[in-house]
């Protein structure tokens, strides 16, 4: 008779795996990808392909030649980093800059710390912020999104037109003290569907929400971080707007514009870099929301989501120490 396996209990395992979780996130990113193709055409496809390809390639090279261990690219986490990085840059960004971003994201943001699970910061955001600081002009020049409902305009070439993001428009207006520019802002409906300037993944709120609902249903994320993030940003911006409507824009604009939704649903919820307990996650979300509005309103950059999330990533170990799960009989 052959030898028996005598390992300890439990003797069965559920069907959850790291691979399944990571590929679920990739599936959830598909609607955003499709929307970016519709609005930005082939440019979006090239940026995404280069970003994903470079992320996977860099991880493979580092694992194979530097760490000399079996590769883990099939777990799908490098693909997530690639997609999220692509979704955070303008579609007309030169592809060599995209490749640099992918290198920083994977090599500096992830593999330096020991790979998936050990990185303290969201790798895609590390790459994105590096690009924003190193290539500020290229990173803040956006093409106008195609108006899919206006065939005449779609037919015309879109490469020539560049459009500022709503947030950049607002920043300029507040700085110049000339609020009349704000009349050019897209309305809420446009922003919900996605016809405004911006990075690949931040133009359509609906696509982001579809992905978010998928992740919630698959129990990959819980509501705590996205809801506390969005709600705290909304409430804080609302208070400012209520005090001085002329200087601070309506809270709904903050929520629908820029990368706030993308950040709240896909980046702040990154398991590796966010707190473990539910109470800690709410604190984390509130921190992200407040920091985003503070940076957007008073900071040098029009957009603050990336910085807000990275700053909160840095305090995650502290939050984990301070906010424990509810114990039995306590």
């Amino acid at each position, binding site marked *: *008779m052959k030898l*028996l*396996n*005598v*390992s*300890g*209990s*439990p*003797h*069965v*395992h*559920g069907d*959850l*795996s*790291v691979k*399944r*979780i990571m590929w679920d996130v990739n599936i959830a990113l598909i609607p955003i990808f499709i929307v970016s193709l519709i609005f930005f055409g082939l440019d979006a496809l090239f940026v995404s392909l280069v970003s994903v390809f470079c992320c996977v390639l860099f991880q493979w090279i580092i694992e194979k030649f530097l760490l000399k261990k079996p590769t*883990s690219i099939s*777990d799908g986490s490098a693909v997530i980093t690639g997609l999220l990085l692509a979704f955070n840059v303008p579609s007309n960004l030169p592809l060599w800059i995209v490749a640099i971003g992918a290198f920083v994201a994977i090599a500096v943001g992830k593999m330096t710390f*020991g*790979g*998936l*699970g*050990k990185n303290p910061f969201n790798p895609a955001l590390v790459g994105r912020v590096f690009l924003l600081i190193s290539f500020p002009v290229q990173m803040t020049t956006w093409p106008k999104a195609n108006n899919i409902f206006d065939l005449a305009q779609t037919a015309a070439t879109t490469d020539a037109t560049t459009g500022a993001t709503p947030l950049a428009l607002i920043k300029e207006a507040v700085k110049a003290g000339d609020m009349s520019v704000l009349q050019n802002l897209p309305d809420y409906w446009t922003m919900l569907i996605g016809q405004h300037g911006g990075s690949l993944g931040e133009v359509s709120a609906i696509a982001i929400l579809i992905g978010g609902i998928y992740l919630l249903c698959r129990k990959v994320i819980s509501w705590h971080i996205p809801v506390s993030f969005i709600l705290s940003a909304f409430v804080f911006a609302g208070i400012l707007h209520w005090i001085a409507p002329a200087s601070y824009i309506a809270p709904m604009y903050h929520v629908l514009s820029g990368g706030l939704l993308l950040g709240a649903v896909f980046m702040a919820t990154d*398991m*590796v*870099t966010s707190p*473990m*307990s539910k109470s800690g996650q709410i604190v984390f979300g509130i921190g992200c929301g407040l920091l985003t509005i503070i940076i957007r309103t008073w900071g040098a950059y029009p957009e603050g989501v990336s910085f807000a999330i990275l700053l909160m990533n840095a305090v995650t170990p502290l939050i984990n120490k301070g906010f*424990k*799960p*509810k*114990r*039995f*009989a*306590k």
Partner: protein
Amino acid sequence: MKTFPLGGIHPEENKLSTAATIEEFPLPKQVTIFLNQHLGAPATPVVEKGEKVKIGQLIAKAEAFVCANIHSPVSGSVNKIDSVKDMFGIYKNAIIIDVEGDEWVDTVDLTPTIVKDIKLSKTEIIDKIKEMGVVGLGGATFPTHIKYMIPEGKKAEYLIINAVECEPYLTSDHRVMLEHTEEIMIGVSILRKALGVEKAYIGIENNKPECIAAMTNMATQYAGIVVEPLKVKYPQGAEKQLIKAITGRNVPSGKLPIDVGCVVNNVGTALAVYDAVQKNKPLIENIMTVTGKALAQQHNYKIRIGISYNDIIEHIGGLPDDTAKIISGGPMMGKAIVNLEAPTTKGASSMLVITEKEAIRAEEKECIRCGKCMEACPMGLEPYLFSALINNGNIQDAIGEKLMDCIECGCCMFTCPANKPLLDEIRFAKNKFRQTMMQQQKK
């Protein structure tokens, strides 16, 4: 529907042997009876080599406080008293009896009539339970009579009967509830009398509707016994979780159920108590599920203690080719058997055959800090943190994070997407800590 609030999981139920009625397992040629088949000190043998014994005859006597009497499950002659390897390969003293015939001691009532009238008094019941060597049949095999000797200053309010059977695969409690419904009710009434309480709750998970129906129906004749259907969630059968689910009371860290006025016993124990008190029959057999996905037939056996696992395997016609693991108990908390020559002991509730496909653990990955282990933990602990601390050799900090509150239910490890051996690490640290405590006490 009631359940416990924190954590918990829903493993695949795999109750394959639900429909298999309880069969009498044939007598073997020889049985091996360990002197220590309960929690506590070993019993002292009162028979000698060559002595003739009958079924139900006392063969080893409880002398320590936490200990239980042991009776012969067969008739025959004592072959020897020797040290024998148990199912983990550890040598323990045992009485080995060669089976001759099938002769009972004449004090046992072998008639099938159900004795409803409880004649014994409170103290007589407890003495009888002790005399008949009844131990808890839910897994821990704690001598039952001790639970009913309530310490000074404590008061029991509720008797809770654990008929949850939340472990996948196991069906012995299920069958017992269907086939011995009335005996169980009488057993519960005896236990209520021993405890001096009116109220008894029988907790049954909602995946056993026919048991709930049969028991509820029978309970109408027994005032004070309430059948409580519970929402299906593992580990509902864990003592603290069951008390919380039924009464809403919290047993604090390091305390016992009696500290919140509860005494918990397994439904199988209630049946054993009925047999002991009403029929004068000692605990000499178990109801045991023999099951597995690869087995052609699923069984529930009434089986004498001391029969070896090899005898069971032979009786069911051998093991399937892809058998990788044989477990005593359920797949979540049961223990893998190392030595199949070992005999079964009191409280052996199943022999579970696990195939290679189920048994092989997937490759361990890096923790991705998803927090699923914390969500699954019914005690509200942080298994990922234990793992990190223990792997850094920092057991003391893990103890500070309430490591000793872990009930070893396995929810964290079952859930972990990175396939971390969380419970292996936790068990290692707990044992290490107990060792250091013992060494300190010696000094």
